[in-house]
């Protein structure tokens, strides 16, 4: 083996080693994430890219898994999550949903309006961003049916909602029109309890939990996203499709 070996000058070998090492400098680009001035911006871009990929991966016709009644999480074990109070004291007697934006029939809608639309009941998984999940039985009107009722502009791109506890959220139109996206007024075939968002909440099995806003008070159909979402404004993902 020795007689076939190539010979190289020691100095040249050191230079070769140095050159090969320098070829690895692209790895240092990752160091940009460690620079305080750039970190926030880079992570924001990363999250935005993830959101873009999420939107591309969303299939409007693909349904979330549904479950048998035997697989339901018992109602008392369905956690109540909020960010402020569990019960913002909604005046259930006089409650209406204020609809505005790119719609033919804006105005106040009583609970009876939602109850007059075809009722969908579904057993779906609710996933919290924290990592836990439960399977609940939800009932309500399809958001797509309601958007038809109010004469929403089919070219609109977003839905934004405001809530009685000052929470706020927004939805891409593709998800809003998904057949399992509900304006939910029932859980386990009982009217929503106050803690779970009475009288009306979003129930979106194709989205993470925090996008399924409770105690809705206002709904706007819009082409431009002016208000994004409470948790998004803290730095969480906007699209967060499941």
């Amino acid at each position, binding site marked *: 083996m020795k007689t076939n070996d190539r010979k190289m*000058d*020691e100095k040249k070998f050191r230079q070769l080693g140095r050159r*090969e090492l320098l070829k*690895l400098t692209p790895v240092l680009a990752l160091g940009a994430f460690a620079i305080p001035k750039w970190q926030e911006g880079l992570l924001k871009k*990363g999250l935005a890219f993830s959101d873009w990929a999420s939107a591309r991966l969303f299939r409007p016709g693909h349904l979330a898994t549904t479950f048998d009644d035997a697989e339901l999480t018992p109602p008392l074990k369905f956690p109540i999550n909020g960010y402020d109070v569990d019960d913002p004291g909604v005046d259930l007697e006089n409650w209406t949903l204020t609809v505005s934006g790119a719609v033919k029939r804006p105005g106040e809608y009583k609970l009876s309006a939602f109850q007059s639309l075809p009722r969908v009941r579904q057993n779906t998984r609710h996933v919290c961003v924290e*990592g*836990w999940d439960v399977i609940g039985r939800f009932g309500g009107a399809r958001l797509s049916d309601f958007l038809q009722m109010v004469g929403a502009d089919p070219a609109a791109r977003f839905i934004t909602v405001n809530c009685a506890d000052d929470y706020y959220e927004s939805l891409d139109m593709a998800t809003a029109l998904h057949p399992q996206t509900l304006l939910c007024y029932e859980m386990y075939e009982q009217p929503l309890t106050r803690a779970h968002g009475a009288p009306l909440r979003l129930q979106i099995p194709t989205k993470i939990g925090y996008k399924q806003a409770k105690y809705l008070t206002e709904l706007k159909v819009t082409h431009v996203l002016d208000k994004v979402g409470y948790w998004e404004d803290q730095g969480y993902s906007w699209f967060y499709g499941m």
Partner: protein
Amino acid sequence: MSGSVIEIIQAQGKDDEPVVVGRAAYEHPFMVRLCHWINTVALFVMVGSGLQIFRAFPSFGAKIPQKDLLHWPKAFAIGGWLGGGLQWHLTFMWIYMATGVVYLGYQLLSGNYRQALFTRRDIPGVWPMVKHYFFFGEKPPVREAYNPLQKHAYTTVIVLGVLSVLTGLVVWKPIQFSWLAWMMGGFHYARIWHFAVMWAILFFVLGHLVMVILHGWNNFVSMLTGWKKDPEY
């Protein structure tokens, strides 16, 4: 191809006669080294940020009542809080995946995978290697660039890497990847597998670091420059 070129390093002696001062072999191609170091950083961030996310619900049971599996200290996590952990995790996962794909593509297309791939023929050689490393057994003869135990480790870690991505995709999108989710038992179980795979990878990293330290500076440098100086060559 790596391992196939042996260089004799020479310096001018006092009476103009060339003197061999060492030998070296080219062990690790550039793409292998590049991907190795990028994913060293990426994996570090994925584990750190993943544990930050885990801290938000450190359990694999019910939420009510919640029974935590273990408390992972914030000091050993990346991101500071759940939102921060997710930002790091959802950003670096793309770097981790892309590098993995490039690495696998390179290994397959160049044929370089053959020296590290664990096959049936390597099974008998694993136990003698284990005895040598852990139980003071005698050193088995060196036949190939990677011994059977190494091949086992380096093949397994690739499988684990792929599993970390697949389980992660299900935790991220159990509905859009519903067929993958079904194979894993659904979202709730995928989260468990994702966690378990992480620990398996960390176990590999521990063993890997121990071996790297035990095999000395020249061996470590070969993953930087590609070349390993070794009088045995």
